[in-house]
């Protein structure tokens, strides 16, 4: 796919589906005529207090956690040190919000069958057009008897685009419960755009003996089941390609005793290729998988061949109880004569049946307590700070129940107008009830005082389709101004001259205007390691705007009306750093280690190979993989080997260098500022 084709296609699609004669104005006028109520009752007014009181309160009221993020941010730390942050402790009772119409629940079945002394009850069925699932319970599994991978049929509808299946059996409690999920398209092409699709469903669940042979099969038929138009979900890699050989993970069976997986591949020739020592890493969440100890398969079945595709079932002697993600890796294939094809073929799954949420399951199984927002919840605004480039707040949620998070927030001015800002929300890892909320305005706050309100949305930690509640706080904050210096200092390195033209700095944030000659006409920008030190505080680049480039039209989009480029043959950029001044004379040091070039739209294979060879000489082995999954997939750099102690980021840096995406400096400027 060429990028130009993509560009043309997007424009054509937009033109096709959104006509030129669209007219939003009548509806906008109607909305403007409805006066927007300002429903918030100011519950408190900020009182500015001195540093000693702030520190004293922090010590005695236990709000020290709130400093966690502030003290990790040089800009906010310095404003805190300077007493510019207010400890306010204003509490609001959140307003419970109406939630959206709940999705239709699973279809409860409750039908039982007994075969060979084993009783199995089909509890529920749920069909989406991209994923189908059912849940069951079973008793009487003795003498090595177990269940095999089920098969779902859909009457006249033929499933398409199979993307793997998973069966989870919770066999460490009674009754044994199981959930089966298969990813594939079930859709009636004739009707799905005009009406609900309904289909008969058949479910076959094989009952196996201790040797894995089928003893009997449970069969359930469900009539006229609705196919919901659900989203394509996932993050499960179904197939992956390495060294030109594709492999798929067809199904996985998870239990407390073992994990079984069927892997299929198309061999490079007619020989008897087999998987060599596949490994699996399991974790309670995707982040834990990488650090989990790999478990090697203890056994595998004979390879079966179907139409040139070879499939092998492998068993890992590890419990999957409580695990929600895994990474399965096949490093190589081999023949009995010792021929080898190297991988890796890696399958990352983070949607396993154990913890998947199907609508209405909660009422059949465990209730989700955290979705019940109680009246005794309080939300407290503990701290606040504002300058022309940044506002920051610390908010704490107190509730007898756990599992609530602040996941969105807005700022409105006194007239109720929502400010156009960037938003960042963080929470200290050891205190999930506190949140630091930061706003970065697209246009600088112009007034000396900000009057308005902060609104925070409370969501369930588990997500959901809408916020559970919101809380509002009236604000009356001083807005600290920026101080502007124009040092016009120049530095040359590696044949490139740079000019530090302007420093615009508040107590918490600095903006640097930098102009430089580009090494070539491509998109060169200061690298991601670019840092700014003000006094003893230092921060890496956090924001970037291109403001002038002679090759692409000069003063770009007129983003800096009060600013003119010092030299119209140079590129000029504006960079943001979370570090501020300390209201005293001090040095400002800007360090740019290298210039960085945007990655090419298409990476030429020969350039990639040349980079790979260069990295091999440094003990780094990389590869380029593509994969497909049910909703995930993609491609990119794969690190096969790296020297001990080297991080992935360092490998990436070396890779960029090998690809020619870096132009080394360094350029370093030091300027004394006197606020």
């Amino acid at each position, binding site marked *: 796919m060429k*990028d130009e084709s993509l560009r043309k296609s997007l*424009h054509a*699609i937009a033109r096709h589906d*959104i006509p030129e004669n669209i007219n939003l104005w009548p509806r*906008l006028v109607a909305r403007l005529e409805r006066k927007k109520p300002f429903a918030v009752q100011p519950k408190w007014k900020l009182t500015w207090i001195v540093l000693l009181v702030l520190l004293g309160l922090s010590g005695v009221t236990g709000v020290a956690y709130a400093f966690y993020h502030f003290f990790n941010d040089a800009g906010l730390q310095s404003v805190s040190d300077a007493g510019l942050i207010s400890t306010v402790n204003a509490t609001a009772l959140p307003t419970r919000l109406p939630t959206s119409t709940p999705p239709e629940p699973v279809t409860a079945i409750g039908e039982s069958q007994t075969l060979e002394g084993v009783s199995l009850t089909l509890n529920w069925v749920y069909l989406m057009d991209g994923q189908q699932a059912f849940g069951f319970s079973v008793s009487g599994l003795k003498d090595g008897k177990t269940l095999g991978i089920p098969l779902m049929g859909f009457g006249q509808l033929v499933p398409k685009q199979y993307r793997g299946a998973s069966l989870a059996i919770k066999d460490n409690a009674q009754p044994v419960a199981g959930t089966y999920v298969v990813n594939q398209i079930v859709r009636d092409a004739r009707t799905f755009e005009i009406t609900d699709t309904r289909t008969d469903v058949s479910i076959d669940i094989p009952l196996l003996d201790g040797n894995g042979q089928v003893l009997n099969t449970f069969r359930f038929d469900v009539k006229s089941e609705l196919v919901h138009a659900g989203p394509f979900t996932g993050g499960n890699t179904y197939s992956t390609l390495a060294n030109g050989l594709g492999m798929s993970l067809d199904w996985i069976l998870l239990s407390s005793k073992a994990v079984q997986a069927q892997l299929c591949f198309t061999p490079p020739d007619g020989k008897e290729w087999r998987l060599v020592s596949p490994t699996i890493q399991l974790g309670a969440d995707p982040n834990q998988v990488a650090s989990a100890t790999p478990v090697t398969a203890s056994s595998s079945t004979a390879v079966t061949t179907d139409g040139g595709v070879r499939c092998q079932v492998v068993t890992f002697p590890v419990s999957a109880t409580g695990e929600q993600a895994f990474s399965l890796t096949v490093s190589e294939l081999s023949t009995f004569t010792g021929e080898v094809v190297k991988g890796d073929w890696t399958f990352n799954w983070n949607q396993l049946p154990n913890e998947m949420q199907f609508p209405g399951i909660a009422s059949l199984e465990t209730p989700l307590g955290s979705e019940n927002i109680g009246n005794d919840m309080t939300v407290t605004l503990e701290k606040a700070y504002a300058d022309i480039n940044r506002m920051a707040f610390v908010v704490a949620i107190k509730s007898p129940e756990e599992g609530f998070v602040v996941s969105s927030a807005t700022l409105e001015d006194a007239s109720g107008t*929502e400010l156009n800002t*960037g938003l960042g929300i963080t929470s200290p890892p050891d205190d999930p009830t506190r949140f630091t909320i930061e706003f970065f305005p697209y246009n600088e*706050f112009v007034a000396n005082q900000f009057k308005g309100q902060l609104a925070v949305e409370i969501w369930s930690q588990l997500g959901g389709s809408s916020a559970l509640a919101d809380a509002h706080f009236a604000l009356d904050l001083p807005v600290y101004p920026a101080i502007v210096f124009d040092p016009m200092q120049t530095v040359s390195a590696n044949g490139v001259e740079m000019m530090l033209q302007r420093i615009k700095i508040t107590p918490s944030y600095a903006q640097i205007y930098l102009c430089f000659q580009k090494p070539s006409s491509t*998109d060169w920008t200061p690298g991601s390691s670019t840092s700014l030190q003000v006094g003893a505080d230092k921060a890496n680049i956090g924001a970037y705007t291109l403001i002038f480039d002679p090759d692409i039209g000069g003063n770009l989009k007129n983003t800096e009306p009060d600013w003119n480029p010092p030299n119209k043959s140079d590129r000029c950029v504006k960079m943001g750093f979370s570090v501020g001044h300390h209201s005293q004379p001090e040095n400002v040091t800007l360090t740019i280690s290298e210039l960085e070039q945007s990655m090419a739209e298409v990476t030429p294979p020969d350039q990639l190979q040349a980079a790979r060879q260069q990295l091999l000489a440094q003990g780094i082995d990389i590869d380029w993989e593509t994969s497909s999954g049910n909703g995930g997939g993609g*491609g990119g750099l794969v690190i096969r080997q790296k020297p001990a102690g080297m991080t992935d980021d360092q490998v990436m840096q070396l890779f960029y260098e090998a690809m020619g995406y870096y132009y080394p400096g360094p350029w370093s400027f030091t300027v004394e500022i006197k606020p």
Partner: protein
Amino acid sequence: MDEKQAILCLKRGDIGGLEVLVGLYQVRAVRTAYLITRDAALAEDVAQEAFLQAYRSIQHFDPDRLFGPWFLRCVVHAALKAAQKNMSHEDHYSREMTLEELFADGASVEEQVEMTEFQGHVWSAMQNLTPRQRAVVVQRYFLDMSEKEMAAELETPPGTVKWLLHAARERLRSLLSERISR
């Protein structure tokens, strides 16, 4: 009334200024939102909200700046937010070509049909990107933003945008290969 005059009017409280801006930017705004949300009605809502937000924020806007980039940035943000909140929505897209479109330019009918099929594949593939991936594709290829502008816009390190864009492109490439080879 040009764009700058419209902004000045709006700053004075004359709603006629907003009408001019709506006339200038509504189509591009709705199209941008549509490519991210995949829902025409939702895209219109997003664009309306963005215009209302612009109306409320206009006192902070410098009339010497271009309105378009600032406004479309708001649209991308709002569309991304809407798309993320509407993850359960799945549109059922079908692409049919009108005769007028078919003969709209000088390309042969075969080329037109081929291009339309490709567009259908692109659109289907776009549905399988995450909202964030769709947003970067739209910013890059529909709004023609540079990676660095996107990084600033998404408040993301430039390297993240680079890889987000790369992953989105690779994902599209892979999906398109699958679809076209079928």
